[in-house]
């Protein structure tokens, strides 16, 4: 195990975050605050409570999840796409670093950043609404697992994309819609019966539901199912990453 390489990649990637601190952290924190002001304070006041909590508090887990999902994908994809684009990937490919070590370095850094971001959004939310966390351990577990899974997805995207446009279009056309329709702003039970069924095909539903359960103890789908779904997504992403390195897809001639 080349631990020095993992550490080098990890530190290098986090340094990139630090350099682009405003864009990396401040951007999502500000936009989340805006959601709270608009949905939580302005519109939310007109809603009765959802599943026993105020609409503002109900929003918190969903908004955190939404930012974590999109930021994980964009950070991890950018992290690996950049060296491919600039050509500096030659160094990684010629180094005594295994696929596994590469993934730990890049995905680990992207996921770390997402966890920090999620925590900051939670702290920001606390300024707007009062909320409690019923199962702190599971809250952290869901946050970490989601960060890792979607960073893996971003890593795959960053290897697949062969232009900046492709790099942008997947988050825009797939991740953002899934996140918006994943129950961040509503409970599935508010949907018509048909759409309640359809929405179960959206993996984000399970993440948001599980994450919200860790706050308020109530969920749209059983929490065990949420856990299984996260694990399944992670396994699929890992399998794809393994295949990428095995075949050298888009990395080696």
């Amino acid at each position, binding site marked *: 195990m080349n631990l020095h390489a993992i550490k080098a990649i990890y530190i290098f990637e986090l340094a990139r975050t630090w350099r682009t601190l405003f864009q990396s952290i401040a951007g999502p924190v500000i936009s989340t605050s805006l959601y709270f002001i608009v949905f939580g304070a302005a519109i939310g006041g007109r809603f009765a409570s959802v599943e026993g909590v105020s609409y503002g508090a109900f929003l918190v887990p969903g908004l955190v999840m939404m930012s974590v999902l999109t930021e994980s994908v964009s950070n991890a994809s950018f992290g690996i796409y950049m060296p491919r684009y600039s*050509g500096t990937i030659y160094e990684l490919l*010629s*180094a005594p670093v295994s696929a596994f070590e590469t993934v730990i370095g890049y995905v680990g850094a992207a996921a770390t950043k997402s966890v920090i971001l999620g925590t900051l959004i939670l702290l920001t939310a606390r300024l707007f609404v009062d909320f409690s966390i019923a199962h702190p351990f599971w809250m952290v577990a869901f946050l970490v697992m989601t960060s890792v899974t979607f960073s893996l997805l971003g890593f795959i995207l960053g290897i697949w994309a062969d232009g900046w446009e492709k790099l942008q279009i997947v988050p825009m056309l797939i991740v953002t819609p899934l996140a918006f329709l994943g129950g961040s702003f509503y409970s599935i039970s508010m949907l018509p019966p048909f759409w309640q069924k359809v929405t179960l095909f959206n993996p984000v539903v399970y993440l948001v539901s599980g994450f919200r359960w860790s706050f308020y103890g109530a969920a749209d789908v059983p929490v065990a199912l949420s856990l299984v779904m996260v694990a399944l997504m992670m396994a699929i992403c890992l399998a794809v990453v393994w295949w990428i390195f095995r075949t050298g897809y888009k990395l080696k001639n």
Partner: protein
Amino acid sequence: MQPIIQIRGLEKTYASGFQALKGVDLDIRRGEIFALLGPNGAGKTTLISIVCGIVRATAGSVTVDGHDIMRDWRAARSLIGLVPQELTTESFESVWATVSFSRGLFGKPPDPAVIERILKDLSLWDKKDTKVMALSGGMKRRVLIAKALSHEPRVLFLDEPTAGVDVELRRGMWEMIGRLRDSGVTIILTTHYIEEAEEMADSIGVISGGRIILVEEKAALMEKLGKRLLTLQLLNPLDAIPPEFAGYPLTLSADGRELVYSFDTQGERTGIAGLLRKLGDHGINYTNLRTEESSLEEIFVSLVKERA
């Protein structure tokens, strides 16, 4: 002693169907500077990329200090430093950060003293906190060399190290490469500049059309393939070469003041003595004479042409 790099039957066909290497066998001796010469598209970069693990070979094997690059890739790669042809650098990182990153990537614990020595050797020390993108092309090239040396490799690949580098800097780089060789590093460089190979290399390999067409020690190569020229400065200019000399490989300069005789250094008899005697017999006097060897460039061009 076992060669530090052993290449056997190496072939590479790209997905496009282009066959870049058509069965390359090559041994590179420990501690030498090996220059790989060849025209554009001959397979130089492909060959280097396979040894370094960036391109997969279609067939054949490579060992680095006895470690197979496929089976024992970690050990093999740890020994190698690569300076790519293109100036592919990070943009926003400082020189120090990017060089330290490379050392870690190759599995070495951080060692500021080593990085400091490398940066000082390459005259980059005063730029250590500068962002790479703010550096000139020549400095970026040196940053790439510093990155390649950061893990103290035993073998250094330089893919056209002095392309686009000014004359003064090129000299400096040659000196640095010489010092590295003296410290025991084996250096393999590809180049277009024959001058560079002639100046630095111990051995020379010529690759053309995906095949190694020649590997030889430089001195032996120069001697074996070199032609020598004898130039005579004539006392009285000639209008034409007298017919009596028709059998000699002679050429006359445009102004008729110089007579050039070419001869093979390998020949038992150069024929110089006979020529000079005969010139005297015919009353052709000369004021000066000089001999010169053909340069590696001429050898190279004739070799590649021959094969084409």
